[in-house]
């Protein structure tokens, strides 16, 4: 299996008036092989979406990016190279399908625009769009194409967005919270669709979500991010069944279920730090029940079989 995407030591600073005001990414390392799904899980403000934006080369001008991104046969890529790759070899689906489409054009028109931009022969476009919409389970193609975004349900729109992202047969699909804005039932259907498309079409996927169960369902490998760092990564089965990092354990303990006694879910106390500027040592230490003075130092990287954990308190 060849590596499609390799992110090394990705750091992002935000600058205002010449000084660094926040360092939301503090050294992210990720690797995705072809045909594989990497799930990134973490809470609001941990840097999930920012990681995706950095990879796509879409950071605002107030941000400074360090570290390296390698993509498929392009090797090392910078934001300028990304302009050609973005939208063709790497495509993205977003959280809120209602706001991702332009409200004044029909879905058909918007899909057409993408196909034209991707230089697909005019006489092939219609057929391709029909096939794409069918492949995402929208069989009433004519109606969908003639509809404006507000005329379709959230689930249908999200399917349209997936169809749009697949027009160019990308090597990598970045899915940023694709089911969060949908109700649970529809969300699960969309998850199933994404997973089966990924398996039949063979693209690699970066799946971002705060929902641990969604990540567990679609990903082959997963990375748990906290405060701009990957605190634990490894094969999804291993991380879910045998979490090592205290933060991962806390997250999994917080999933409600009938089996856990009421009122006794493991709740991680406190909040995600709002600014990571000048944060040293383990960023989770403040909320961690096992933390002590040692945790003020940069945590070591521990490897247990295929799991990689950044923590002082995990024995190798």
């Amino acid at each position: 299996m060849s590596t499609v995407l390799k992110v090394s030591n990705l750091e992002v600073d935000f600058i205002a008036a010449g000084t660094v005001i926040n360092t939301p990414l503090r050294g992210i390392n990720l690797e995705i092989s072809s045909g594989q799904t990497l799930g990134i899980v973490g809470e609001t403000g941990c840097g999930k979406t920012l990681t995706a934006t950095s990879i796509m080369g879409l950071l605002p001008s107030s941000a400074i990016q360090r570290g390296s991104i390698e993509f498929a046969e392009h090797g090392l890529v910078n934001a300028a190279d990304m302009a050609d790759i973005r939208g063709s070899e790497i495509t993205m689906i977003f959280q809120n399908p209602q706001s991702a489409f332009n409200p004044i054009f029909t879905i058909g028109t918007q899909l057409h625009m993408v196909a034209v931009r991707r230089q697909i022969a005019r006489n092939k476009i219609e057929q391709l769009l029909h096939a794409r919409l069918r492949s995402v389970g929208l069989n009433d193609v004519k109606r969908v194409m003639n509809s404006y975004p507000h005329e379709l349900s959230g689930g249908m729109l999200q399917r349209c967005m997936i169809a749009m992202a697949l027009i160019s047969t990308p090597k990598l699909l970045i899915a940023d919270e694709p089911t969060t804005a949908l109700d649970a039932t529809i969300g699960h259907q969309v998850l199933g669709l994404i997973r089966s498309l990924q398996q039949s079409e063979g693209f690699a996927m970066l799946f971002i979500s705060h929902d641990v169960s969604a990540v567990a369902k679609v990903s082959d490998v997963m990375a748990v991010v906290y405060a701009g760092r990957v605190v634990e990564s490894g094969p999804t089965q291993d991380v879910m069944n045998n979490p090592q990092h205290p933060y991962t354990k806390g997250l999994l303990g917080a999933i409600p279920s009938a089996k856990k006694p009421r009122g006794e879910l493991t709740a991680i106390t406190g909040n995600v730090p709002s600014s990571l500027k000048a944060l040293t040592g383990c960023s989770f230490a403040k909320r961690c029940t096992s933390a002590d003075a040692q945790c003020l130092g940069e945590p070591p990287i521990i490897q247990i079989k295929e799991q990689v954990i950044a923590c002082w308190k995990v024995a190798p």
Partner: protein
Amino acid sequence: MSKSVMQISNVSKKFPIRDSKNLFTAVDEISIDLMEGEVLGVVGESGSGKSTLARCAFGITTPTSGSITILGQSLAGKSRKSTRELRSNLGFVFQDPAGSINPRMSVYDAISEPLKLRGDSTDHINERVTFLIDRVGLASNQLIRKSHELSGGQCQRVAIARALATNPKIVLLDEPTSSLDLSVQAQILNLLEELRRDFNLTYFMISHNLDVVAHLSDRVAVMKDGKFVEVGTSTAVLTHPEHPFTRELISVYSQDLDISPALPANFNLDHWQDGPLNKWAFQNISAFLPIEEIAPAIKPVDLISAPLAGIEELSIAAEGQEYSLPQILAETHTDALIVLRNGKVAFEKYFNGMHQDSVHLLQSVSKSILGALYSNYIEKGVIDLDKTLGHYVPELKSSVYGQATISQALDMTVALSFSEDYTDSNSEMARLDRACGWRNNFTDQDQGLSSFLPTLTANGSHGKYFQYCSANTDALAWVISRVMGKPYSELIEAELWKPMGASNAASITLDQEGLAVGNGGISCTAHDLALFGQLVLNEGSFNGQQILPKAWVNATMSGASKEVAVPAYLSSLYPEGSYKNQWWVTGSKARELYAVGIYGQYIWIDPSTETVIVKMSSIPIPVDPAHSRMHMSLFRAISALQ
């Protein structure tokens, strides 16, 4: 036994529909009692009426009919003052915490507002707010903050404090944690449980998240189309669901993510019916064609198993050679085979990835289902056999169906210009497939059955010749759907699938305008199709009731009049064979009756030995006389077993 704190009796809520005189029923005659201290979780899909029910129950909207009693007092017909007093027993927590708190109010103002409205003294208000802010786990220095300065979890804590301000007995939790991160959700769920215990609160909770509902609720009510389809303890409902909808809801939620099959790489809408694509396509119609579901019975019929000795060892003589059962099943590309003898399962075997619960396309066996469905409406006098199809569907008046009668269409004696050639992409059959959405249609013609069927013209006089034509059945499906004013799928569900006790949902494909493809679009399980066969064998009586008219079954078994000429392909196979009421009849002494679909789909009924055989297949080509003869030999050999 704890006492009831809220009684919801026969509550309905209807809304007017724009540009229509009809009303939309959001909540339909719901009754339920909330017991003191319990957590009732209401689940269901978006639009099922959960929120409307809650709004009625908590006096935010007035129900169209029915009554709400809170702590023994009715919510309706009170003065504003006493309504307000009664309402102080109710608290509300909504989904979007930031949106439900006025951005210009401080936390203190937000929590104290209900108390001010009630006219409490300032001292009391201060004391109460300080108590509440502490109870929900916030520091008192947060009181001067505004909602935008708080995190989502903190906002939700403020909303909870505000809901509890007036010391309510019953609190509405409308998706209380759906906008929160997992670890914050856990904090809020823990807090809600702690408060419930300490203040003896009763929760009416609405959520999509079945994990949250399972964790917090004592009882669960499952809502669909404005009704409760299932109510029970949360363990019972969520681990042993009774109602098919609950089962579906739970299975969608907890599924392994491989149930919605993506299309195979070589998929092509022009060739999916042929091998090898049909091996996948016949079991996965819903992956590429629009369908409408036919729901199963709430109490399905379980067939008893009574294996018949000798089936596995059968030797079948066909096409000049001897086949063993496995050989002939492989030769005819079998996907499923079920044999019923005396109403019991004598043999059942699945191939090509199928299992008991998998559905398979029936092709023209669907026609025989239409035949059975029609018998009921004819018996009821809803449909007159001697009227023309155009009489019922005016759009058909100027076509051949303006002259041909219902009876002629059912018996396929309509004389029309129509080539039923499945292999010619220019035949009328191919145009019909395009109209049904079964083939790519890049033309402006034949966009849907309602534009294709009216173009068909007569060719000869009706009632004299048997001319097998799929369009007749589509026209009949259109007629019955129009007459009854309901989708065709609903008619099959109500008249056949539910009464006979089907176990699994079936489906029928739709054209682009939503008309059902009656000629061949039904998919169902082999088991349910065998039930249907048994129903016909039993002369229409099954599952303790007369589902089809007995006389119709007998008339069908007797076949068509001898005066109707039959083509050679039928008389060479069955010298006395004919076609009646959308069923094939062999005309032999045994009075065999069968339904057949292209690519090897069969129901074979032999009344002389009380045998029903269902076979589903994916033969690579649509029609092949050798395969037809092999099937005949196979079915007769099985049927002859003692």
